[in-house]
């Protein structure tokens, strides 16, 4: 299959799996916002009453993540091998901190994902709320009452910001869904979307830590 063997094909797979993961990141944030409206527990209960939806979604995400991590690692190793000797003086003109550190911000996100799943998903919800539903809200508030935990979250979301600020615009270039006229708009939008996601995600642990959400 050329899609899996060709350098352009693998780049397409990176872009498509990346966009699927971005779609998840957006949906996850919308779900998270129920923390503010007080509907988190009912949202969680309703979501888990639909196991077919949850599990098909999880499988698609796992497939996208596996592809993205696998090819991300291979491509990075190949690219390093293609540039064995560095210049004595390097002066980059267009490459950004984000574009040059995709493998590191990506690794940070992967490590965080594992930590996040262990903390909130694999461990199960310990308590029950007044309506005897699993008390997800209580678990989240409890989790974010610790400063080190909140710092880990904000740092990881920062890595996500950098990863997406390059990844979003790069995916449009890779899939050819752009033009010279549209590219400045796509690049600016990518940064704005990444900033909005950063603000949305980091607000929850910060507000809980500061006692604004109880």
């Amino acid at each position, binding site marked *: 299959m050329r899609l899996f063997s060709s350098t352009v094909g693998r780049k397409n797979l990176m872009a498509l799996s990346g966009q699927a993961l971005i779609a998840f990141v957006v949906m996850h944030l919308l779900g998270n916002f129920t923390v503010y409206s007080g509907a988190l527990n009912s949202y969680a209960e309703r979501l888990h009453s639909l196991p077919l939806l949850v599990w098909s979604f999880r499988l698609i995400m796992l497939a996208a993540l596996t592809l993205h991590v696998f090819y991300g690692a291979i491509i990075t190793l*190949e690219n390093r*091998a*293609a*540039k064995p000797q560095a210049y004595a003086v390097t*002066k980059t*003109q267009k490459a950004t901190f984000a*574009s040059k550190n995709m493998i590191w911000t990506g690794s940070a996100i992967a490590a965080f994902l594992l930590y996040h799943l262990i903390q909130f998903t694999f461990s199960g919800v310990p308590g029950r709320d007044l309506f005897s539903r699993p008390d997800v809200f209580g678990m989240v508030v409890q989790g974010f009452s610790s400063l080190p935990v909140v710092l880990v979250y904000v740092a990881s979301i920062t890595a996500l910001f950098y990863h997406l600020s390059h990844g979003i615009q*790069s995916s449009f270039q890779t899939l050819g869904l752009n033009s*010279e006229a549209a590219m400045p708009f796509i690049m600016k939008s990518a940064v704005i979307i990444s900033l909005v996601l950063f603000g949305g995600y980091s607000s929850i642990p910060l507000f809980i830590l500061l006692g604004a959400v109880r």
Partner: protein
Amino acid sequence: MNLALFVWRQKSPADSGGLQQYEARDISPDMSFLEMLDVVNEDLIKKGIEPIAFDHDCREGICGMCSQVINGTAHGPQEKTTVCQLHMRNFKDGDTIYIEPWRAKAFPVIKDLVVDRGALDRIIQSGGYVSVSTGGVPDANAILIPKADSDRAMDAAECIGCGACVAACPNGSAMLFVSAKVAHLALLPQGCVEAARRVCVMTETMMKEGFGNCSNHYECQAACPKGIKVSFIAKLNREFIKSLAKPSEAL
């Protein structure tokens, strides 16, 4: 003006090489960068030192032979300019200048600043052509081509194959070079017939030659002396996606 140069010296492909310091004295700001190196080499010859080897040919910015990374930038500090067309007025008296060869696994150093860019020729040989049966020369304009398409094809055809895109790419990828040829031919009626095969074969050869993958740093566009844009890489990507509709045997 007087300058301090740090130049990469490497006797042979097997030699490990290193930076050597030289002085460039009484350089006129009207000299080109290569003329400045000629002056330095005259001086080295007088002193009985092996002159610095560097590639050059037309010295008019059209042949794509000159290939030096100057202070970390392929072809030096002036935009859309080859080393031979870079003039010393872009530097100040007392400047320190680092001169290095193109760096990439696919471009082994032959000597000093000279690298082997045969890999680019092999990419072109693999698919950067149009298969035309021999015969009489067709009339000019026998095949009508929209002006916008022909303009864009000519923009892509401006590539002189110098390899600055590879030198500037942190991944050592030749994607801008490949995309210029793929886009140039795919935009024209004579070339679009083989577009699917061309994009697959040329990118495959690129990887076999040891170039890296493109990850959209866009350094290549900044370094290109001919102003080839990364929008041609997006065009290459579209050509690849279109090629997926064809079975491998049909290519």
